[in-house]
């Protein structure tokens, strides 16, 4: 399928313990809807697949968890597709360039990311769901909204903007304390990312300090958004396998046809 990018796996995955339930389960057609008007000319009712979103800061273990979920889902006979922010054919290169030059003001940044999201929604997510794939989204509109709200954008404006988005079947938020995130980022790259530290906000000139403050602000927004969007908050300070077991359990109920998302 065009545009569906698979992120290279970083570490070899352990062999999967498939256990007893090795019958391939055929998921029921689950009714879907958009948050607002959706996409002109697109019907949500014939989308056979499931949209599974994993949210969380850099270092919360999103990509590791998604890699393991793909492993598990494919082992269970489900086709998967992966999407994530800044992976669209249309604007990903330009967006990356603009981020490096650090010249975008907030409304522009917000709309540029929304364009990237919409392109992937229409060209990757919706076709994959129509074809019955399990779509794993490495971040979704909630990260974009939280980042923008922290930068002072109006929530109503964002809600209208993302009225195009499909309501996922389940949204996980991998919650990790900012202190733990710092440690994980250092362990991985020995550095902190400019944007993930919210340096554009001028919270502190000290990057370490800014990172902690910024991540705390984002986490606060996620907690607030949780009330509206009903995320499943997962304590990702726990070991990888434990977290994954929790995700699988929840996805299992979603596949069985019970709605994972509370709304």
């Amino acid at each position: 399928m065009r545009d569906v990018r698979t992120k290279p796996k970083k570490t070899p995955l352990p062999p999967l313990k498939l256990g007893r339930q090795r019958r391939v389960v055929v998921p029921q057609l689950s009714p879907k809807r958009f948050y607002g008007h959706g996409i002109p000319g697109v019907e949500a009712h014939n989308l056979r697949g499931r949209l599974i979103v994993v949210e969380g800061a850099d270092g919360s273990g999103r990509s590791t968890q998604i890699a393991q979920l793909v492993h598990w889902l494919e082992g269970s006979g489900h086709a998967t597709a992966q999407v994530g922010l800044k992976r669209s054919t249309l604007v990903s290169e330009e967006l990356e360039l603009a981020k490096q030059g650090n010249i975008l003001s907030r409304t522009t940044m917000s709309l540029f990311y929304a364009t990237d999201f919409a392109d992937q929604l229409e060209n990757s997510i919706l076709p994959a769901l129509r074809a019955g794939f399990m779509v794993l989204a490495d971040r979704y509109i909630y990260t974009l909204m939280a980042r923008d709200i922290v930068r002072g954008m109006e929530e109503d404006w964002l809600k209208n903007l993302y009225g195009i988005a499909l309501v996922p079947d389940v949204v996980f938020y991998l919650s990790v304390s900012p202190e733990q995130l710092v440690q994980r980022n250092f362990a991985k790259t020995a550095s902190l990312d400019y944007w993930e530290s919210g340096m554009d906000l001028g919270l502190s000139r000290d990057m370490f300090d800014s990172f902690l403050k910024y991540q705390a602000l984002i986490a606060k927004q996620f907690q607030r958004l949780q009330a509206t969007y009903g995320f499943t908050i997962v304590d990702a300070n726990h070991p990888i396998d434990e977290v994954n077991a929790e995700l699988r359990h929840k996805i299992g109920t979603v596949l069985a046809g019970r709605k994972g998302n509370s709304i």
Partner: protein
Amino acid sequence: MMKAFAELGFSGRLIAVEGLDGSGKSTQIYLLKRWLDLQGLKVFFSPWNSSELVKSATSKGKKQELLTPTTFSLIHATDFADRYERQLVPLLRAGYLVLCDRYIFTAYARDTVRGCPPEWVRGLYRFAALPDLTFFFKAQLEVSLQRILDGRPTLKYFEAGMDLHLSPDPYESFRIFQGRVLEQYLAMSTEFKFLGIDANQAIEAQQATVRDLIASKLDLAAFAAHRS
């Protein structure tokens, strides 16, 4: 309720021109800019779809026909936001006369014709203030069509509205598309206090009307680059 820059306390003023392709609005805004320049006023001209940052994505999207109504709308909003935040607003704070060849009404009209919900499109652009003056160049549809079709025989895909599948013939598609855009313009003309200019008139006659209107509505001396 959206407000114009004057109402928001900006010292500059924004003048926008709107109209169909081929209505002659770009010629008129050029002549307007020349007139204001020659008076030694602080003037800045901003065409639609011109942000350096977004340009390469837009042209790629258009050339490879990657755009859907939603991404067409969003990428133009991104372009507008970039010019708005980095150029228009600072210049208007500094007391400039800013001339815009097309403003948010172009997006309202085109995106709605493409099938985006009007409330959604208007919501996207809610961050922008209204122009202080909006000139709408109203030509008969056939006249605008003829101007374009005479001069540029190959119509571009999105320009002709080919993405809407109105007709397999680009010329016919263009006619239908432009007709629908015109309807949208006319429907919002009162709401946004468009100053209608009869674009079937001679260039000079239109320009004289535009200049008279501006001179009567703005205190041009206040925009002098060097005040004595």
